């Protein structure tokens, strides 16, 4: 430490530097979050004011536990997160290895990787809605050449194909991010390690298992934390692509909470869903922090 003043005075100054930002975070994020928790124990339905508002204990949570629509959204969200992030991880790793091997990350390649990441998720979703439009979309038009029947090309009308669209487009949008993160991780692995391994007679697969994967771990974990937490909160993507349909087949937890709050104006019930989402993603974050090792967070 090159700090020369007394430790307490130094700390006071540090807190002064931190105060504005922490105050803002406390007011706009932490206080509302506490308010959400409080709301989740309340009856607060703006559309039905005659029911009154007030403390109803765990009634919202009890209602959730017995709501099939909630459990469907719960399973949907975990399924979406697991499948999308795994696909993005595998494809992103393959692409990163290929680009690293080819040693050709030209500006053009990098821009091609950044573009899907940089546009709003709902804009990407709208683009894909056009590409899969059953009447004049490019993809159904292409598949029609192979004898697919017209009614099988209305992807969003069937739960399985609707999920395929939701997952495939999410993978399209986010694999480039994964690739960039992993590529950055690969680029800091010293080349001579591979030369030494080759001298010792290691095969390409052995070098990958014993060298690349362990050394890539920090980059892998950070990319996974970001992607998993984002996938778990998926909202705009589903709102735009399927609107939760057909039926309620593609609803995510965030989508369900949003509908409960802003469509049905059930602030208490919606807040209870939010608290459960929050707890789930908190558990995820803790798991990841444990994997990362808290020591690494504070370097």
């Amino acid at each position: 430490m090159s700090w020369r003043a007394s430790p307490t005075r130094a700390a006071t100054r540090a807190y002064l530097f931190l105060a504005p930002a922490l105050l803002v975070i406390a007011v706009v994020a932490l206080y509302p979050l506490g308010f959400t928790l409080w709301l989740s124990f309340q009856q607060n339905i703006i559309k039905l004011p005659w029911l009154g508002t007030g403390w109803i204990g765990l009634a919202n949570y009890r209602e959730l536990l017995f709501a099939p629509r909630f459990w469907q959204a719960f399973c949907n969200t975990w399924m979406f997160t697991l499948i999308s992030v795994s696909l993005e991880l595998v494809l992103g790793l393959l692409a990163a290895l290929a680009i690293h091997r080819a040693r050709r990350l030209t500006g053009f390649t990098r821009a091609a990787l950044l573009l899907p990441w940089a546009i709003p998720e709902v804009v990407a979703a709208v683009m894909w809605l056009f590409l899969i439009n059953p009447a004049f979309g490019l993809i159904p038009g292409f598949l029609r050449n192979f004898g697919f029947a017209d009614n099988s090309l209305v992807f969003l009308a069937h739960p399985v194909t609707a999920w395929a669209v939701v997952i495939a487009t999410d993978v399209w949008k986010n694999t480039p991010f994964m690739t960039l993160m992993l590529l950055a991780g690969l680029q800091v692995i010293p080349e001579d390690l591979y030369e030494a391994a080759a001298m010792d007679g290691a095969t390409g697969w052995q070098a990958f298992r014993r060298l690349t994967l362990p050394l890539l771990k920090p980059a892998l974990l950070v990319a996974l934390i970001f992607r998993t937490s984002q996938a778990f909160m998926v909202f705009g993507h589903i709102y735009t692509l399927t609107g939760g349909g057909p039926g309620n087949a593609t609803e995510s937890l965030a989508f369900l909470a949003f509908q409960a709050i802003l469509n049905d104006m059930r602030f208490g019930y919606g807040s209870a869903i939010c608290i459960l989402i929050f707890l789930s993603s908190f558990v995820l974050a803790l798991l990841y922090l444990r994997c990362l090792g808290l020591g690494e967070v504070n370097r």
Partner: protein
Amino acid sequence: MKRQPILLSAALVLFIAVNFFPFFWILLSSLKPSTQLFAYHPPLWPRAFSWENYRAIFAERHFQVNILNSLIVAGGASFFCVALGSMAAYALARLAFRGKSLLLGSILVISLFPPVALVSPLFLFFRQAGLINTYAALILSYLTFALPLTIWLLTAFFRQVPWELEDAARLDGAGTWQVFWHISLPLAAPGVFTAAILTFIYCWNEFLFALAFTTNDQSRTIPVAIVMFSGYHTTPWGQILAAVTVVTVPVALMVLILQRRIVSGLTAGALKG
């Protein structure tokens, strides 16, 4: 150096094509007159170019208002994030105090919060304060996710600034604020700029809060406006594609020009924090 296996190059070309092609197709389609746009077998290259869709979004839908909204909201939020965040990040990167690792950990955890958990309290506050449909509501709500992210990024950048100049200034009797303002901040300027770009992109792309806290066309930001183009019965595809192109072309140019910075920002938190 071994020769490139053809398979590897082919796979790379395919990967890049898959990334690029949808944009290319949307751009071409936005210029097609509706007879070609909705053809059963749409022509790959437009047989005639038409600017009608572009005229319609600006003249009839006043899309420029939504662009302005997005610029103000994303610009305002990034400004506050960088101003507040750089001070906090400086303290986290450079000053000694108790509970630093706990604070950094909590900031990371906050940036993993599900934003939907804030929709109901913020909606009730904004409604009570008459802030629905205002820039203030969007900027305030964007700070919730953008500020922790900016702090996290900037902390990584401040750590890369060499210590020596700060030490020299301190020996000359400069106070903490002077060292921060005259030495560290200018030295970290490229990092601050990068953090500002990333924060801007995240706010520019935000959808959930923008959808929840705006109720009319004039106050919507770009992503919400584009989604709301569709009516109950008709979807004006030509106009949607034109709007998508209008907002994607500047992003593409920005990404092309600032790619190194953006990538360094994306990976700053990940490696050697």
